[in-house]
């Protein structure tokens, strides 16, 4: 029973990792760059939601939607104005650029909102339901449900909408997409925008658990583990990877005594390293590709 309880909690936090990882994967597939500021965008999402819902008293769903919209637009321009400038430079440049951007966002947040810990009320806060002796909080349910809804929406978007298909085409083969008349640069900015939007969703869903402060951006780092485990190229892989990481963390926390002290905090990183060493392709990767010479 306790195990099931742990797994449910793990799935909920894992969904958050998965959503952030999803952002990594979308951007990576399209542009072969990794956005190290993904966690900081999540943090911005949580802060914006705090402003709209907590400070301005907007109702939860409107505030949620508006937050996602704002952050998505922000993501679009982040690519169009800044990141696009260094396309084609070595990986190192993008890594450093996005790390720098992350610092700017964090600095901005703590200057604009301050360094206190904030919270805003949600329809789920503090409510729980009991089911066969399991205690399930509404917040966790909202995270799991929110992830499921978002995943389905993205699935339909990428499979059926014209622009979604164009995005996939651009990710598969930039040059071919370009020749087919797809505005590749615009599409890439849109992908950044979706990634940012997804991170914002994660930020708002997470806010009731962790509350809102600049340190939540660190979730971005653990989400790397999810993305790597999932194969860094697969959307379902990112979510499954996230859920596994979430569960592993819960288990490590509970059975710490049998392992070693403090294992929970670094379990995500350990999984990451082990994956990279033992099975670097991850669970859901496409077939191994040979670099063309």
């Amino acid at each position, binding site marked *: 029973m306790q195990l099931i309880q742990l797994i449910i909690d793990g799935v909920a936090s894992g969904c958050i990792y998965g959503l952030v990882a999803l952002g990594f994967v979308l951007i*990576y597939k399209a542009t*072969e*760059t*990794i956005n190290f500021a993904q966690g900081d965008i999540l943090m911005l999402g949580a802060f914006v939601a705090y402003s709209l819902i907590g400070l301005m008293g907007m109702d939860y769903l409107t505030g949620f939607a508006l937050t996602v919209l704002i952050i998505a637009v922000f993501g679009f321009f982040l690519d169009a104005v*800044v990141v696009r*400038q*260094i396309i*084609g*430079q*070595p*990986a*190192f*440049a993008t*890594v*450093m*650029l996005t*790390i*720098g*951007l*992350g*610092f*700017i*966002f*964090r*600095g*901005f*947040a*703590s*200057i604009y909102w301050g*360094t206190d810990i904030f919270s805003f009320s949600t329809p789920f806060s503090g409510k729980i339901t009991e089911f066969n002796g399991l205690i399930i909080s509404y917040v966790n349910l909202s995270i799991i449900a929110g992830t499921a809804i978002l995943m389905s929406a993205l699935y339909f978007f990428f499979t059926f909408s014209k622009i979604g298909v164009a995005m996939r085409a651009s990710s598969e083969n*930039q040059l071919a997409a370009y020749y087919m008349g797809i505005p590749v640069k615009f599409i890439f900015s849109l992908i950044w925008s979706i990634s940012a939007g997804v991170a914002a969703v994660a930020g708002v869903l997470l806010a009731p658990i962790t509350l809102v402060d*600049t340190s939540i951006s660190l979730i971005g*780092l653990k989400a*790397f*583990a999810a993305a*790597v485990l999932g194969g*860094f190229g697969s959307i379902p892989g990112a979510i499954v990877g996230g859920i596994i990481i979430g569960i592993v963390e819960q288990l490590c926390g509970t059975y710490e005594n049998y392992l*070693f*002290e*403090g294992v929970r*905090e*670094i379990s995500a*990183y*350990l999984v*990451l*390293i082990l994956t*990279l*060493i033992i099975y*670097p392709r991850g669970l859901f990767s496409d077939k191994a*590709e*040979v*670099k*063309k*010479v």
Partner: protein
Amino acid sequence: MRFIFKTKYSQDINIAKHNGDRFWYSLLILIMAALPLVLDDFYLGEISYICILSIAGIGLMILSGYTGLASLGHAAFLGVGAYTHAFLLTNGVPFYASIPIVIVVSFLVGAVIGIPILRLTGMYLAIATLALGFIAEHVFIKWEHFTGGNRGLPVPQPEFLGMSFYDSVFFYYVCLVFLIAAMFAAINILRSPTGRAFVAIRDSEIAAQSLGVNLGLYKALSFAISGAFTGLAGALLAHYIGYLAPDIFNIFLSLTLLLLIVVGGMGSLHGTVFGAIFVGFLPQLIAICRDYLPSSIGSQPGLEPMLFGLILVFFILYEPLGIYGRWIKIKLFFELFPTYKRQTFKKQKVFTKSDRV
């Protein structure tokens, strides 16, 4: 503009290509050696710290700037060096014996970590080193027998050559001598086949391999050498801070080292010194910013990460060759004045190709 006539191959092999170089660098060393005559303890301490940063920067530069491998967890090597050194000194090992042990230990740690993770490319490597940095920080906290854990570990300041490390003049000279030695070692590696193999890996792994460079071996070697330099810096840093706590060696320190090489200039050893000076005076710079900004912003703790990020982004976007690159351009501008052309440094973009499959 200076034209150098070369009459012997050894001129290309030598470190100083002509007498002018020899003169200026000797002068620089003399000035550095004379600094204690004019500077007070505070500034000597600052400059000692900059020397330590430069040594660590050399380590990271060899890995990232010359071999093209990113490491986001290099503070771990500073930690390995610092804790090993403090542990050895605490157990009565003399300074002159401890330093070589530190270098060897850091080298081995680099090699052992390097071998499995260096099969990874670009982004994956960055992520893996980031994770390793966190794990290392954690190990420093939990391995109390060795590190003192969160209580911290006082660093003994033994006598060396009859002098005390509490004496800031003496400590300054120690740091300076180690920096000069480290520079020579790095230059020697880089003008040898090993250093060229590193550059080859950075610019084209495929070609390097086809010319007989064993990629795995050389990447691990680069990691190990980088670790050795950074570990040495860690040992000196231990003396500088005097009391080791695990959270010193955090991700922020790793990123500071990266900032150092980016700002200094990727792929140049001069750049490590420029970068170290910049990073060393960054706190003062931030303090100055605080004074000039309206106090509502100036007093914010968020200002520091903000500036850190802005500097990084600025250099990556607008000054990718760093301070050293800018210095070369300015020097050339005056040498060629008034015939300097902007295009001289426009990189030909015609043959760029992508990493895509």
